[in-house]
């Protein structure tokens, strides 16, 4: 389980470092997919494929668009989507903070920069 949380945290860190880059946004959605997959398996919370599909389509639209105004509009939709999923990802990290067994070396990774996760990391120490 630790490795999954590690992946989710680092995806968030990437997003947090460059929240406006498409690659970082993709990382955020990958964290979201991991959370959905985990919750679906462990807690039997079903996810909707249409939701993931919609996210992929929006990202694709952004990539395909050359018009700057259009790009800004699509980015605003993407940002709203990120905001709405952010809570789910952070709730996951808080729920599983009890079994985060960080060793000292983990702090080399500067994960404490992840906004909103600082508390989770500190609690687990």
């Amino acid at each position, binding site marked *: 389980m630790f490795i999954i949380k590690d992946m989710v945290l680092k995806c968030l860190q990437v997003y947090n470092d460059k929240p406006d880059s498409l690659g970082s946004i993709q990382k955020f959605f990958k964290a979201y997919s991991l959370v959905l997959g985990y919750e679906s398996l462990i807690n039997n919370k079903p*996810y909707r*494929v249409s939701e993931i599909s919609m996210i992929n389509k929006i990202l694709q639209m952004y990539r395909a668009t050359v018009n700057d105004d259009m790009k800004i509009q699509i980015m605003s939709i993407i940002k709203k989507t990120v905001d709405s999923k952010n809570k789910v990802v952070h709730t996951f990290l808080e729920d599983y903070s009890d079994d985060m067994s960080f060793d000292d070396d983990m702090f080399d990774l500067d994960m404490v920069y992840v906004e909103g996760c600082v508390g989770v990391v500190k609690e687990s120490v």
Partner: protein
Amino acid sequence: MNKINKNDENIVQLPTVVKQMVLNVLAEFMQKNDADDIERLYRASQMLYAHKEIRDKTNTYLEKKGLNVDDLTKKYLSFSPLYLKLKNLRQLMAEEKDEKIKSRYSNEMNKYFIKLSSIEMSIVELFISLVLHCDIQNTPIRSAYIKDSRDNRFPFPHQQNIGGGDESVF
């Protein structure tokens, strides 16, 4: 919460070299910011899926969860050809200057998205289930482990002591 205990007898001890390979792919997952992350999860799960003991335990677990293992693995195995098509289209679209043709490619890609999204979640679910059944689940990913894209494979046995247990992984 229904968690799998790390001391559970269902946890398979992975050979160090396999662990290294999986960790390398996951480190790549962490380091690169592109659209290929799902392919990396697929590659990592392939390495675990190839391990019979892990695969069997995972399948038993998924069956107990009421999930259709055949359906899940069928989707999982259909990933590669579909992903290649999508990747091809993505490449063609990036190189295309004509907006009309670009839009045609984009529409074609859209057709794949629902199918691929469903497969994507199957890969994520299978990847997590596989990870939960081996001792790699409690290992942190060291993103500094791979140096660059030309040197991103696991160290070969002659380059390090692979018999030294987990410490030798890093």
